[in-house]
């Protein structure tokens, strides 16, 4: 398991954080997601053997946001 932080510059409210956290339920290999609208970032804890950074970025994009690895 590794933890990776992504900047999400286009979050507009705390609901966006909740939407991003819902990726926990759909992305295979994710253990936990903590998104913060206050800091405009998302910390993903995931299994790197099952999931790649690119896949996370693509899933975030599907939700309507841009994820920039920190």
């Amino acid at each position, binding site marked *: 398991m590794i933890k990776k932080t992504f900047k999400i510059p286009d979050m507009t*409210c705390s609901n966006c954080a909740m939407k991003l956290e819902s990726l926990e339920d759909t992305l295979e290999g994710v253990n936990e997601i903590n998104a913060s*609208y206050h800091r405009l970032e998302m910390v993903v804890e995931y299994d790197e053997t099952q999931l790649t950074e690119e896949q996370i970025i693509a899933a975030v994009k599907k939700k309507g946001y841009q994820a920039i690895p920190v």
Partner: protein
Amino acid sequence: MSKNQTKPIDPVIVVTLGVLLVAVAFALIAFQPQSNSIGIAANSGTLTQLMVAFVTGLTTGGLSCLAVQGGLLASSLAHQIEQDYLGQSAQNKKRSKKGQTAVARSNTALPIFLFLLSKLIAYTLLGALLGWFGSFLALSPVTRAVLMIAIGIFMIGNALRMFNVHPIFRYFSVEPPKFITRYIRKTAKGTDAITPLFLGFLTVFIPCGVTQAMMVTALGTGSALMGAALLFAFTLGTSPVFFIIAYLTTELGARLEKFFMRFVAVVLLLLGLATLDGGLNLMGSPYSFTNLTRGLTTSASDSGTPASAPSTDLTLMVRNDGYFPQILTAVANQPVVLALVTNKTYSCSRDFVIPHLNFYQLLPDTGTVQVNIPAQPAGTKIFFTCSMGMYTGAIIFE
């Protein structure tokens, strides 16, 4: 076929609908003071308050609620709708293709309706609880003023956050605890009728700024029944906007949300400024926008009742649309008697407050109430207002 069902709706139509609702609400407010002919009896003040709550819900409440609860709940409902739709599609494929669209449409509306119904019940109960709790607290005009100022700042901060003015304003957005959002999310996965009902009930944990203001008002009523009625009227008012937008959001997604948020921000900013101004009025502050600009506006609005020479006997007409004259002149260094005259007055102007004297009284809808004002030195300016800080005026001692 599925493309037909998710056909995008022009955001202009949505905004037009919003503007239309706001216009209807303003029309209701504008015509409300002239509603004497309806012949509402003694409890008309209560009815007026409920009407104001309903109109607030219909306009800003619905939009503000949408800003806080809309995204999460619409997406949660979308999940539910998606599940319903997939289930229905699979069944309908086996049957005739004709009925497919109609079934899917009715399923889209039902969860939102159930959600709003549950929300209405939850807030009514919350209102009863707050009103009951408020009966143990005596909210003085000063306390209420402080609350109004705090709520006003909260609303302005949120509007500036929506406009992305500075990162600091992001802290005006209250992030619900993770365990609550996680719990709501897990619950939203259910596809039965209980899920939207339960989700609607959970919205009491994520109230928007305007709802919070209304909750404080419910607290201030000091009555379980009145508190329940107030939040019922308010939540009922929010329902049409919430229903329309939630329904459309499931079809338009984030695109509409971002577009509409700007409109919400403008409304929230205006409401925040008005609330802040009301709070300052209620405190008797000479620095409220209303009191600062009084000199520019009084001459026109006081027509027919000009301020006369300084006197120790003052008469103030308390009307549905405010106080007349707005400026009274009193003799300095002598006690003054102020007669407050009401005549079929049902608006909030009946809740008369003189912050400087810590005087507060609910006036009869028709009659005269006398207030004894102790001697004041020359140059003193005492402001008076209604309990909502909407209608104001001043007594100048010369």
